[in-house]
Each structure stands twice: as structure tokens, then as C-alpha cells.
């Protein structure tokens, strides 16, 4: 097989379509993820629009029951698996290597593979529309409604296969980011110096690694039931549909933290930056994130309070669920503590971050009211739950992600967003989302069940439904404004500079947009909020940092080369899964197409394994990848790099010190206070002046 890689030349394009298709650069993959997921957001938003239009008046006949059922199923599935998760992945990709001072992720080609598989999974799922067989059993598709006797068309096969493909993508990405974060940090970046977003990515990835296999097994069992006559969830064969619920929610609840933790990470970056103050209680915020991740495993049955688990089990899950409010509350309080005494600068990114906090509290509090099982018996499967979902997912996850978009866009493009339009976007979203979703609390408590395609006027739900639908229009306009803003901002001349927000993260010390190799010289991290430390020391020494790290000739730095094979392998995965939809009905070769897919996959993997990560490495080195991305540049590259201030890093003393300015205790060895830039009272170094 190695011959294959000899025959086909390594792709080399650096620009144009082909360069995007073969790219292994984490920044470009981040962009691919982001753009694709945004398009899916529009799609999911249009589906929401059809839902809202249908429900705006009673007895509406705009769409049929079956179409409506497809709409909310695809809306929920799209928003969760094709929007929020990949948008988070987009940030993982773009930000993580920059934030930990690495040249790329640990496995750049695996990363490209993750993206392509995600794209194909999304397409496979949506291809169901083309055959008019979109899945229609809700985003958690409770068995046994999903079994053949009740769902005869192939909708749920599309759903189950699509989600399995997406699972492959998420798992591959999670593996990659765990290794990247654990292993590729710049020297000096100990765990407790990792930015919060990096921490939350790590926790999220671990949750993914452990949660996805569970749903995969559920989906496999469902696929088998539907296609091979097994009885996993078929009562007539002795199976128990409740097993599906357990498998789904053992995945499903950690999943909601998979959705929110990245947003919490983003917000924990944005709030300190725009308060000009370090994150309040950093260790506690980290710890509470980890605790949320762990506790998230002990609460899944709160989605099943009405299933008849018996009061003992319900009590256990009720209490564990309610207790999650504690670590989450700790985060909220520490965020407010970050603002307290700071200088709050209401840039758009900050507005979205603050919006996140404000709205997530609402969603969290209604969450606690679901957690109380007796009262949940009245709320479950009503619009009260729909309100909760959207406060935590739209007000929470999506607001957090938009905060990230506004925060890192200048880094990605070198251009600032139009602030006025950004603020308009924020306010339209903030108002629109409250108008849309707040009335749903009442609708639910007034007895409106979810997933109904029509309702009679006699129940008194008309007015609030109309209000909610009007709110949707506001959101619609808000989304358009955002699109306009992106288009306008992209056309501008670069105006952001490398550090427009005076931010603390490593990524702001390099040019915007970052060069392909990220860091010419891998930085030595001196503490939490490294770049603040650097800048404030420099300011104290009277030479503020105004330039990013100097540009070097990229050819002097080893970077992994582009590759076809991730794409080829991903195509194999698509054919393997999608081919399952074509059942010949013959005895032995019921599924011929998946075999072809399997073979393509196999070829892709072999070629991938035989291809050296970078061209220069050819010969002898047949390793897949690993480590090459972060390999240290040859000495020539360093020469051009900005000089480091003397005394930083290795040479510094290690005594406990007090800052003479702010009085902070400094746990490591600094000549200048990392918190305020003031001189350090140090008997060892008495000759330094105040900054």
C-alpha cells in the first residue's frame, strides 16, 4: 500500500478550494467547522420558524402533523448535534493550540478527518429530507415508537446512522483534544495555569469520550432492531423500551454539559478581559467545572421521573440533580466576583457574555424546578421544559458561543467587527429570545404539552403562542444582522492589531490572523494570564508591548503537510453508513454498498498510516503522526523573534513574595506583580523601581 502514497503526489496547495479540502491546519479546520455549523444553525432556525409559524394561531393547517413532527425532530437534532457541538469544536480547533502555545493539535490529519466525518454525518441526516423520510420521533426518539411497526419508513434509519457517523467525528475530535491539551502545552503551562476555556475543553472532551459510546450502543441496537429483527426494545419480543431511555439519557445528560461547558469556558475568558481583572477564584471555577462534569453522570434519570422508577430511585436522582445547582452557582458567583471592582467594558463580546450569565440563571433555576420530581410531574413534556431548553441552550450555549465569535473574530481575521451592528445583534437576540421563550414557561404551566402540531383555542394558549412567534421574527432579524456584520467586517482593511482587547491569553501575543505555524518561538508560560504578565512587566519597565511576535519564514518551521487521506477515509465512512440504507433483501449480500465503503475506508487508513506527516520526513519515518506539529523549530527561526525581557522565566528566584502595589501573594517567582504590574517587594532584588 505504501506504493499508493508514492504514486499520488502529496497535495501542496496553499490557497484555493483544494487547499481547504486537503488542509490539516487547525485554524482552517476551525473555520470549516464554524461555517458549516453556522449554515446548519440557519437550517435549524428555519425549521424553528416553521414550528413557530404553525403554532402562532390555534387550529393551524399550515403543515401536516407528520411534517411538524419531522420539523421538531430535525430542529432538535440539528441544533444539538450539528450546531452547538460543532460550533464548540470550531472554537476548540481555532483556539486551543493557540491558547496552549502549540503549533497545531496532536493529530492534525485526524482533526481533518473529524471535520469531514461531521460534514458527511450532517448531510446524511439531512438527506432524509430529499427522500421525504425525515425522522419524526423527537430528538431523543423514544423506543418503541421508533421500531418498524410504528415507524415504517427509513426516517429513523437515517437518524440512527447519521448520529453514529457524527459520533465517530465527535470521538475522534475528543481524542485529539485530550491528547493535545494533556501533552502539547508550552513549557511552563501547568494545569493550573491553563486558561479556563482550555480546562473546559478538556472536561468536555472527557465527557464526550465516555458518553458517546453509550449512545452508540443504543443506536446500534436500534439499527439492529429495525434491520435485523432483533428485539432490544421490542416489548413483544421481551425487550424493554425503557432500556433505550437509560442508554439515551446516560449519554444525554452528560451531553447537555458537553453543550454548556465550552460556552462557560468562553465566558470565563471574556469576562476577565473586559473587566480588566483576573478571573475571580480561578481554582474554584476550574474545580466546579470538573465537578459539574462528574456529577453530570449521576443524574440522567431526571428525564425519566414520570416513567415509574419508584420513589426511592426518583429521590436519589432528584437530590443529585438539585445539587448540581451548587457548582453551577459557584461559577455564576465567581463570574460576578470577576466583574466586581473591575472596569466593565461593554463591547459586544462582553454583552453576549453577560447575556449568557443573565439568561443561564433563568434556565438553571427552571432546571432546578424540574429536578423536584413531584412538581416535574406537572412540567414534564410541556412547554415549561421547552422554555428551560432554550434558556440554557440559546441563552446559554449559543450566547456563549457568540461571545466567543465576537471575541476571537479579530484574531481569526485581523479585523474588528462593526461594534454598532454587533450591539444591535445582541439586543435583538436578547430581547427576541426573551419574547420567544419566556412566555413558554406560562404555556407549559397552563398545560400546553410539547410536540403538538395543533391546539384548540379553548385552552387559552393563543395569545402567548402568538407572542412567542413574534419573538421569533426578532431573532430572525437579529440573525440577518449578524450575517451582514460578518460580510461588512470581512471586507474591511485589517484594523484589529494583534491584541485589540488587551487580553491575557497566549493567542493574543501573535499576529492576527496567526501565521500558519502559530508561534515562531514556543513561549515559556510564566503564569496564569501569561500575556498580561508579559505586557504589564513590559509596561512597568517602560516599554509596553506593541508588536506581536515577529513573522518568520514558514518554510523554516516543520508543519504537517496537507493530505487527501482524511477526506478519503471520511468518504469511506459515509458510504459505509449511508449504504446501510440500501437493503437488497437478498439472503447473504443484503448490504453490498457498505462493503465498498469499508474498502475505501481501509485504503484511506493504510495510505494515511504510510504517509509521513510532512514531506521532508519521507523515508524511514512511517509513523502516523504525533508530536510533529509541535516540534521545535530550527534555531534559525528563533533569531528573528522578539527579545525576551531579561530575567524572565528560567533565571528568576523562587521565594514567596508580596506585591508592594496590590499586596497580592505571588506563588511563584516574579520580578513584577502579574496582577497589577507593580514591583515586587523582594529582599533579593531591591533595585527594581515601581512601574
Amino acid at each position, binding site marked *: 500500500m505504501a506504493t499508493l502514497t508514492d504514486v499520488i503526489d502529496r497535495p501542496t496547495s496553499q490557497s484555493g478550494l483544494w487547499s481547504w479540502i486537503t488542509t490539516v491546519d487547525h485554524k482552517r479546520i476551525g473555520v470549516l467547522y464554524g461555517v458549516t455549523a453556522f449554515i446548519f444553525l440557519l437550517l435549524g432556525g428555519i425549521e424553528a420558524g416553521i414550528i413557530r409559524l404553525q403554532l402562532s394561531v390555534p387550529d393551524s393547517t399550515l403543515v401536516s402533523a407528520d411534517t411538524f413532527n419531522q420539523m421538531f425532530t430535525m430542529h432538535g437534532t440539528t441544533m444539538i448535534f450539528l450546531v452547538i457541538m460543532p460550533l464548540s469544536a470550531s472554537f476548540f480547533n481555532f483556539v486551543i493550540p493557540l491558547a496552549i502555545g502549540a503549533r497545531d493539535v496532536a493529530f492534525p490529519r485526524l482533526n481533518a478527518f473529524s471535520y469531514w466525518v461531521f460534514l458527511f454525518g450532517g448531510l446524511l441526516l439531512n438527506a432524509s429530507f430529499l427522500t421525504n423520510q425525515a425522522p419524526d420521533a423527537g430528538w431523543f426518539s423514544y423506543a418503541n415508537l421508533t421500531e418498524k411497526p410504528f415507524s415504517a419508513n427509513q426516517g429513523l434509519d437515517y437518524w440512527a446512522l447519521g448520529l453514529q457517523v457524527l459520533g465517530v467525528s465527535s470521538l475522534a475530535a475528543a481524542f485529539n483534544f485530550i491528547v493535545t491539551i494533556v501533552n502539547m502545552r508550552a513549557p511552563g503551562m501547568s494545569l493550573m495555569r491553563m486558561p479556563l476555556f482550555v480546562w473546559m475543553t478538556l472536561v468536555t472532551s472527557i465527557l464526550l469520550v465516555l458518553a458517546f459510546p453509550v449512545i452508540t450502543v443504543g443506536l446500534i441496537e436500534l439499527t439492529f432492531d429495525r434491520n435485523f429483527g432483533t428485539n432490544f426494545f421490542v416489548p413483544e419480543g421481551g425487550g424493554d423500551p425503557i432500556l433505550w431511555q437509560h442508554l439515551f439519557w446516560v449519554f444525554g445528560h452528560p451531553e447537555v454539559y458537553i453543550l454548556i461547558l465550552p460556552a462557560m469556558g468562553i465566558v470565563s475568558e471574556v469576562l476577565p478581559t473586559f473587566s480588566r481583572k483576573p478571573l475571580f477564584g480561578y481554582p474554584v471555577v476550574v474545580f466546579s467545572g470538573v465537578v459539574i462534569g462528574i456529577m453530570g453522570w449521576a443524574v440522567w434519570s431526571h428525564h425519566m421521573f414520570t416513567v415509574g422508577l419508584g420513589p426511592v430511585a426518583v429521590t436519589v436522582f432528584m437530590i443529585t440533580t438539585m445539587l448540581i445547582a451548587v457548582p453551577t452557582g459557584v461559577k455564576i458567583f465567581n463570574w460576578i466576583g470577576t466583574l466586581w471592582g473591575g472596569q466593565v467594558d461593554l463591547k459586544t463580546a462582553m454583552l453576549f457574555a453577560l447575556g449568557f450569565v443573565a439568561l443561564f440563571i433563568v434556565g438553571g433555576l427552571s432546571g432546578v424546578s424540574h429536578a423536584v420530581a413531584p412538581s416535574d410531574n406537572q412540567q414534564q413534556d410541556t412547554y415549561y421544559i421547552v422554555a428551560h431548553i432554550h434558556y440554557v441552550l440559546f441563552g446559554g450555549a449559543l450566547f456563549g458561543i457568540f461571545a466567543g465569535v465576537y471575541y476571537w473574530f479579530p484574531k481569526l481575521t485581523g479585523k474588528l467587527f462593526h461594534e454598532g451592528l454587533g450591539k444591535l445583534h445582541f439586543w435583538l437576540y436578547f430581547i427576541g429570545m426573551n419574547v420567544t421563550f419566556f412566555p413558554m414557561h406560562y404555556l407549559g404551566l397552563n398545560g400546553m404539552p410539547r410536540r403538538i402540531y395543533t391546539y384548540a383555542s379553548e385552552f387559552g394558549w393563543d395569545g402567548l403562542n402568538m407572542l412567542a412567534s413574534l419573538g421569533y421574527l426578532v431573532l430572525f432579524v437579529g440573525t440577518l444582522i449578524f450575517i451582514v456584520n460578518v460580510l461588512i467586517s470581512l471586507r474591511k482593511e485589517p484594523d484589529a492589531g494583534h491584541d485589540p482587547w488587551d487580553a491575557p491569553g497566549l493567542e493574543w501575543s501573535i499576529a492576527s490572523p496567526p501565521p500558519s505555524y502559530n508561534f515562531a518561538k514556543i513561549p515559556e508560560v510564566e503564569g496564569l494570564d501569561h500575556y498580561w504578565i508579559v505586557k504589564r512587566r513590559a509596561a512597568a519597565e517602560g516599554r509596553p508591548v506593541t508588536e506581536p511576535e515577529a513573522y518568520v519564514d514558514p518554510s523554516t518551521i516543520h508543519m504537517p503537510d496537507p493530505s487527501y487521506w482524511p477526506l478519503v477515509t471520511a468518504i469511506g465512512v459515509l458510504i459505509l453508513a449511508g449504504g446501510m440504507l440500501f437493503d437488497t433483501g437478498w439472503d447473504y449480500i443484503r448490504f453490498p454498498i457498505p462493503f465498498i465503503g469499508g474498502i475505501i475506508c481501509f485504503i484511506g487508513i493504510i495510505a494515511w498510516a504510510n504517509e509521513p506527516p510532512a514531506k521532508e520526513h519521507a523515508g524511514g519515518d512511517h509513523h502516523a503522526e504525533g508530536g510533529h506539529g509541535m516540534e521545535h523549530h530550527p534555531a534559525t527561526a528563533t533569531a528573528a523573534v522578539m527579545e525576551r525581557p531579561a530575567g524572565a522565566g528560567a533565571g528568576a528566584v523562587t521565594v514567596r513574595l508580596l506585591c508592594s502595589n496590590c499586596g497580592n501573594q505571588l506563588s511563584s517567582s516574579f520580578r513584577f506583580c502579574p*496582577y497589577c504590574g507593580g514591583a515586587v517587594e523582594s529582599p533579593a532584588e531591591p533595585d527594581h523601581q515601581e512601574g
Partner: protein
Amino acid sequence: MGLLPFRGADSHPPSVRPRRRDKKGKTTLMSKRFTITRKHLFLLGISAILLLLMACAPDAKQSTFGTSGPVAEQQLLLFNVLLWVMIIVFILVEGVLLYAIIKFRRRPGQDELPPQTHGHTALEITWTIVPTILILGLGIWSAITLFDLDQPPAGADALEITVVGHQWWWEFEYPDADGNGKYITTANELKVPVDRAVRVNLRSDDVIHSFWIPKLAGKIDMVPTRENYMWFQADETGTFYGQCAEFCGTAHAQMKFLVQVLPQEDYLAWVESFGEAPTLSAQAQQGQTVFNSTGGCVVCHTATGSDSQEIVASRVQSFMTTETGIAPGPNLTDLATRERVGAGLVELNRQNLRQWLRNPEDIKPGNYMSGRAAIYQTADGRANLSETEISLLLEYLLSLK
């Protein structure tokens, strides 16, 4: 009861506590552009709460606020207390958040850094412990309520019924309707006596449904593999509205039912008359013949007393195993005593019933009557029945009481 925001008009929203003066003696939150005084905050809070109260409509037919009976009331009590906790936490936390945003706005010319605090251990411990205590308190109380509501109170002479979920209608079985062992099956309209606990056994013959009468009790799922149960008790007579709460396919939105809470005597009278041969006019007798003709309505429906277990089982069997087989259909014995037709959907009157018989699809898209019955397998989905046959059937159905 003053605690409960949704019961009675005399409940007073708590006033927002006066804010303590801060060190510099200012009582206002400063900002360049506008000033928020305590009065503003107070008015804001009051109007927010009033808004909250207004939007809740205990009179709405499925409102969880207009409760009757101990189960729904206790659930509402719990919710109301939670709601107050939530409102208080909300006002406190969002208030502090808003305060921080306004008070600590960056002002032009502020170039020096703010004090770089990075934590406060005592504070952090406090805001971990306080919510924990609050939550454990709520949790324990909730658990007690939970166990309380699990079974009807000991000694209550509960009426036992079994509810079976079907796509998309309800079957009600009374193993012992009158205390003398009378067995009744009926459908879509549950008749129960007032002031008496009703213990409900929940089953399903196809997929998962959920049994929910918002004003009487929270929902419990009906799972094909389980014997779930719940109980409720209505404290007043009247009509209550119920709804399937678990998504169960095409017509889930229209899987509704009514609960008629009757005075004890009326209930017993209904039980007694149930299954007695109705007095049929000549036309109605002709209708009966149509009803009972081979391949007619009687394959799926019984109109003369309770369905036997065997016949129900065989219908279910046929429904589950064949794509075109018959379906179990609602028992029609006391049809004329019902208020609605089509599983709680539309008023039971001649006109609606006629429409139902012409094409049930018009009233309830996806239903398994026109989906499975041979007479409805026509190109336009309309019944293979002449208008006269329909009129005769109507005559018959409307005399079933």
C-alpha cells in the same frame, strides 16, 4: 395560603428590602447616563411580579394552577414554594449582576488597572455552603412529598381503574365499578365519583403514552412493559381535561380525553345503566345491523357492554402483527352519554359524528379508524358508506346510553 401566588387574590408580593447604604452614604446606583433609585427597582420588581401573576390563568382548562384534589394541590404547593425561592434567587443574583455591571462600568480615561483581586476564600465558601443548605432543605421536603403522593392515603377506599393507552385514544377499565364486581370498559371519557381517591393502573398496548389530567394530578407514563400506577382525587364535580403527554406519533396532539367528576349517586347510576340494552328506534335498529354487518364496525368496536379481554387481545394482536389488520377501537357502549367524540376532540353532536363517520381523517389526521378499516380504504379516504347508512348508524350511535 398567602404564600401561594396563584391561589386567591389576596396574596401580597413581598416588598423589595431597602438596600443598605454603602460606605459613602449613596443609596443610588450610579451611572453616567441614568440613575436607578430604590424606588425604580421596587416598581420594577413589583411590576415584574404582577406580570408573572397575570399571565397565569388558573381558569384555563389545563392549567396546573387551577388545581382540585390533594395530589395536584401538593404538587402545586411544592412548585409555588420553589417559585418563590427562584424569584428570590433570581432577584438577588440578577440584581447583583446588574449592579456590578452598572457600578463598575469602565469610564473614559480610566487607564490605570482596577485592583487585581483574584479570589476571596471566605466568600467562596459561603456561596457554596448557603445554596447547598437551601437545596438539601428543599430536597428533603420534596422527597417527603414524593413518598406522600406515591400511594393513596391508607384507609382511603380508592376506586381502582386501569387505563390502557392506544394510538391515539384511551381505554378505561373498571374491574369493580360499583363495589359489587361490575366490570366495565369504556373509552375516552372517564367517569369518577367526587371526593373519592381513584387509583389508576397504567398500561399501554402499543407505544409509550403518558396519562395527565393537569388539574387533578401530574403525569405518569404508560409503558408497554410496565405496570405503572398513580392516584388522584377530585374535590369538586365537573369536567376536567386530560391529555397524552408523551410523544406517541402522528396524532399525539389529539390524544385527549375528558374526566367527568360526578356526584356519587350520578356515578352509581351510570355504572348501573352501563351495558343495559338501549331502547332503539326502528331506524336505530337498522343502524345496528349496519354496525354489526360482516366487516363492519363491530370488528373493532363493541357497542353492547364491556369488551371481553380476549376480543381486545385479539384486536391488539392483529394490529401489531399486520400492516393492514384491524385495530382495537374505543368501546362505544355509552357513547351517547359522552360530551365529545374523537378522544376528547370535538363536541359530540349529530354534525360532528356524521363528519367522523364520513371521514375521521377530517377530524383527526392519522387515526387508525380510517387508517385500518376496510370501508375507509378508498381513493379519497371517504367512507364506503352511503349517506343513508351513515344516517342509520348515527341514529344507532346516538341512542347508545
